[in-house]
């Protein structure tokens, strides 16, 4: 009995010790103390994260800048950590990075087994098809009787097979050892179509001699929801990252952009006032300044600006918004409201 009591007392004392220590070492506090955000990105993927003249640029890169602006007040307070696909999740788990913003697909295994949580879907990718413009094909359902080039050993191979089987189409799938060989096969006319993830198709198309001679069909036949990831043991930090993503989407929906921020401060609309922090005190609930979202928008723009600059009309990729258009404008992009 005595030892049990003292054990209880000891564990109480330990608990008393560990609670403040844990609170002090939360990711938000660590980022604040460090004065910079450690952001894991891909080693080089045009449009998403790439080094240009010594400066990081891209969709995934800019999202980290938005988080840094919301948390630290400046988009420049980010250290980018380039990571290979193999090392990315371990880097996050070990605490080497605060956030993984590296075109990673949200799956059950990555959350339940790896102990990570995806904050939001910032880019709905999925498998698509590229065909020659001259073929006048407008839908994947017109590919019956044709040949399709695909890279060996990828999920794309199975997804394509399942899609054609489900639609009772006879399609010959031609397999190539790697991505360059697959594109070369398509370019040489060994197949009428080529398939991989949609964002990959737009990147591959740029490598063709005449990119304009190929078109990418609107059909998306699989789900590859991409977004930022944090550790599952720090929900407070997770919420910060999640709501920065939601803030950018809400900003587009409300018409708040880098061009309208000044006008937004004078707005009479409660939704706008809450978002940019002149009303409601929502920043404090997240442990941030009330102008958190305004700073994020100021840094990278709203979702439309972020998208168009990096992968849309402002980029050589020119990926149409498609699924990534707002839910109210023809896409499926949706964010819960700031209120």
């Amino acid at each position, binding site marked *: 009995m005595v030892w049990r009591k003292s054990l209880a007392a000891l564990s109480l004392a330990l608990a008393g010790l560990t609670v403040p220590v844990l609170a002090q070492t939360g990711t938000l506090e660590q980022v604040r103390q460090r004065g910079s955000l450690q952001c894991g990105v891909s080693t080089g993927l045009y449009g998403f994260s790439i080094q240009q003249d010594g400066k990081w640029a891209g969709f995934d890169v800019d999202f980290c800048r938005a988080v840094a602006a919301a948390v630290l007040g400046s988009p420049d307070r980010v250290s980018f950590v380039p990571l290979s696909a193999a090392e990315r999740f371990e880097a996050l788990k070990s605490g080497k990075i605060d956030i993984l913003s590296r075109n990673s697909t949200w799956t059950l295994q990555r959350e339940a087994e790896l102990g990570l949580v995806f904050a939001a879907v910032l880019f709905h990718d999925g498998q698509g098809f590229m065909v020659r413009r001259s073929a006048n094909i407008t839908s994947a359902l017109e590919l019956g009787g044709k040949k399709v080039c695909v890279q060996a050993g990828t999920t794309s191979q199975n997804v394509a097979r399942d899609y054609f089987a489900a639609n009772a189409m006879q399609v010959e799938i031609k397999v190539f050892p790697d991505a360059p060989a697959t594109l070369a096969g398509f370019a040489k006319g060994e197949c009428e179509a080529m398939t991989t993830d949609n964002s990959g198709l737009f990147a591959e198309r740029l490598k063709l001699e005449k990119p304009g001679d190929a078109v990418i069909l609107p059909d998306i036949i699989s789900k590859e929801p991409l977004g930022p990831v944090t550790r599952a043991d720090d929900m407070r930090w997770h919420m910060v990252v999640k709501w920065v993503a939601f803030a950018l989407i809400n900003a587009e929906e*409300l018409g708040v952009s880098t061009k309208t921020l000044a006008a937004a401060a004078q707005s009479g609309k409660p939704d706008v006032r809450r978002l940019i922090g002149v009303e409601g005190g929502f920043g404090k609930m997240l442990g941030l300044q009330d102008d958190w979202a305004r700073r994020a928008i100021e840094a990278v723009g709203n979702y439309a600006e972020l998208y168009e600059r990096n992968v849309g009309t402002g980029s050589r990729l020119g990926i*149409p918004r498609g699924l990534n258009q707002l839910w109210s404008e023809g896409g499926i992009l949706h964010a819960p409201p700031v209120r």
Partner: protein
Amino acid sequence: MRKPLLLAFLAGLAASTAFAQGRTPPPETMDIGDEPGRVSTPETVIEDGPFARQMVFFRSSEPPNTVVIHTSERFLYVVMGGNRALRYGIGVGREGFQWAGLQKVTRKAEWPDWTPPPEMIQRQPYLPRFMAGGPGNPMGARALYLGSTVYRIHGTNQPETIGQAISSGCFRLANGDVIDLFERVPVGAKVIIRHGPQV
């Protein structure tokens, strides 16, 4: 503290008034005037890059052949059904000349004549009062007339201006693209012009 703030506010007010009257072109607008007489062939289409005509994913409850124009995006969509739309890159009205509304295509014309409306002549007195349709006409190869407004969806003899905000409120497509649109969209089709939300 109050005075500079007030001054800044007044300056902002003055700037926005100037915008509305279209006297001060906003910095992002390229100052390209109309070039009547310059020839662009009917075959000219936007072939490459984001403004090339292409089929895109587009959820919509509007019936097929409805035209949806997103001014801020610089795109015109023709709803095709089945969650798809054919998307064209367009040039739109410059700042202060953008508008939103619901219209119908009331008339279609090939190689339309150009009679700049009086308010346009007032702003740009150097413009011709009338110009017969043809390859050098800024109206381009085809025009779709929107309701009883002075605005049209039309071609252009300046295809490099697609994607920009420089018109007086009309929507311009490359000649080859407006010919394609002309074939698809019948008189009576619904046209939804969206301007994006205002703060």
